[in-house]
């Protein structure tokens, strides 16, 4: 609760400063707000606000809030390069990110479907605007149109699911829904269809096959800064929300769902990695990689009682952000993979960060991505062994996708051109690289 208030106030301040065309001050205010929100979550995470009984919102696990704040902080720094030059929309961009993060924090750990839905919309609506924030670009406009219509369609589907679950059980509180379902209402078609619609809405938000179609187009049309935010925060929030909602509603009956979830996992991973293989655009490659990673994240639903997803989503975010930052470094206005040729030789830090991020995404042992994937699969194997085997096969295909990008980046150019990183980009690359390596000591 405190985190949301802090984020909201700093977002408002950022709007005023942005109006006066002071991009650096807006960045400082947003960074302070994000740091304050993370600290508030750390120190007052167990604090129950006087409104908590009324709003049914109590942050039970402050680690997610802190992770979301840190990831957003890295995303706005990594994308700041562009907004320093065109200082027109800096304040709007930063404030919309902060407002959207308020919704993410509300939505990540719901215990009430009403609050969950409002959080989802507060998360989504600013992102519709953010995708189209470059008003003069036809591609940005197309991406915004596509994301808005598919996104609000999915919201309506999800809302329909919530209404049907309410009709079957008579409550929005997850605990009450669970206890009502447990006494046999679960068999009613209304509850079944309702939870199917809910699952479809969730799958859309995290971009799992067969609700992935918007992903590549929207990611390609969005700017690097927005791509960094939406490919990490939305996925982390979505997967935490789905684990919380499904984990509480179907606490004793989740095995009904496990076949369907397995199907989503296998389809997403194979489709994502195989399609990523032949992409020529970096942003589309990241989009397909994020579809495959959404499939992997769904493994958390296999063992709801002790799902261990934190390390995996953190590793995914800390590997995606440096890659997009490097894309921004390569060429601000193009996302063609030809820009990546020999990029590792232009700057030593870029080379190191790129190798570690790609190895982490591919799941090579000493890095964070490996431990995330390992802990996720380890708890899922007893429940869905065959899906886990298929996921491992898909991961091997995925490793080759990332290695292909690595080979391209490491190709030795004939003429070496050095290029300097900006200060924020340096900080982002350093922090993400260090956290990818030191993840071993955190578990």
């Amino acid at each position, binding site marked *: 609760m405190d985190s949301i208030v802090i984020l909201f106030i700093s977002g408002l301040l950022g709007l005023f400063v942005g109006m006066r065309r002071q991009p650096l001050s807006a960045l400082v205010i947003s960074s302070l707000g994000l740091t304050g929100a993370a600290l508030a979550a750390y120190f007052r995470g167990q604090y129950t606000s006087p409104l908590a009984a009324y709003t049914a919102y109590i942050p039970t696990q402050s680690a997610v809030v802190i992770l979301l704040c840190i990831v957003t902080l890295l995303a706005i720094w990594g994308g700041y390069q562009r907004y320093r030059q065109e200082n027109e929309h800096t304040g709007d961009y930063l404030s919309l990110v902060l407002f959207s993060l308020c919704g993410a924090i509300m939505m990540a750990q719901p215990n009430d479907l009403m609050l969950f839905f409002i959080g989802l919309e507060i998360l989504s609506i600013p992102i519709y605007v953010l995708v189209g924030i470059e008003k003069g670009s036809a591609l940005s406009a197309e991406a915004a149109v596509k994301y808005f219509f598919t996104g609000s369609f999915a919201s309506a589907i999800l809302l329909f699911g919530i209404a049907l679950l309410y009709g079957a059980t008579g409550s*929005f509180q997850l605990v009450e829904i669970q206890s009502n379902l447990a006494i046999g209402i679960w068999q009613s078609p209304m509850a079944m269809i309702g939870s199917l619609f809910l699952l479809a809405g969730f799958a859309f938000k995290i971009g799992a096959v067969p609700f992935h179609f918007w992903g590549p187009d929207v990611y390609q049309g969005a700017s690097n800064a927005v791509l960094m935010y939406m490919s990490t925060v939305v996925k982390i929030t979505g997967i935490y929300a789905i684990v919380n909602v499904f984990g509480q509603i179907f606490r004793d009956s989740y095995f009904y769902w496990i076949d369907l979830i397995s199907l989503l996992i296998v389809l997403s991973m194979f489709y994502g990695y195989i399609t990523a293989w032949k992409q020529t655009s970096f942003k589309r490659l990241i989009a397909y990689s994020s579809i495959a990673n959404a499939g992997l994240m769904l493994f958390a639903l296999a063992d709801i009682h002790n799902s261990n997803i934190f390390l995996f989503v953190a590793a995914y975010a800390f590997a995606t952000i440096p890659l997009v930052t490097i894309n921004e470094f390569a060429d601000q206005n193009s996302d063609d993979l030809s820009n990546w040729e020999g990029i590792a030789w232009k700057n030593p830090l870029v080379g190191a960060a790129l190798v570690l991020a790609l190895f982490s995404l591919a799941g090579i042992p000493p890095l964070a991505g490996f431990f995330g994937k390992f802990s996720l699969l380890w708890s899922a194997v007893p429940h869905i062994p065959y899906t886990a085997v298929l996921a491992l096969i898909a991961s091997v295909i995925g490793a080759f996708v990332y290695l292909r990008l690595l080979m391209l980046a490491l190709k030795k150019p004939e003429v070496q051109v050095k290029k300097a990183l900006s200060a924020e980009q340096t900080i982002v690359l350093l922090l993400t690289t260090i956290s990818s390596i030191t993840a071993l000591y955190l578990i």
Partner: protein
Amino acid sequence: MQAASSIGTSLDFYLFVSFALFTIGAIGAMTRKNMIVLLMCIELMLNAVNLMLVTFSTYYGNGDAQIFVFFTMVVAAAEATVGLSIIIMAYRNLKSIDIDMYNQLKN
């Protein structure tokens, strides 16, 4: 509980209307090409859900869902605002509001 008994016999009717509205909205959102019509179809879906929530709320005799309906209305209004501004921005770029004209993003 008096309200519950008054609607009890005709619950099916309200649910039927709400399902029908939702289906019309969903089919429209999937088949129509004009962006303004698409926006209207999505609003229709949200309003169908509102009708269903109010029906269930009366059936169960508690007010939770009626509070939810107000929030849904606010969300629908926010979505309409953002949606119309996105449509205007898109129109300035491509001079068309036909959704099929937006097909430049591909590999």
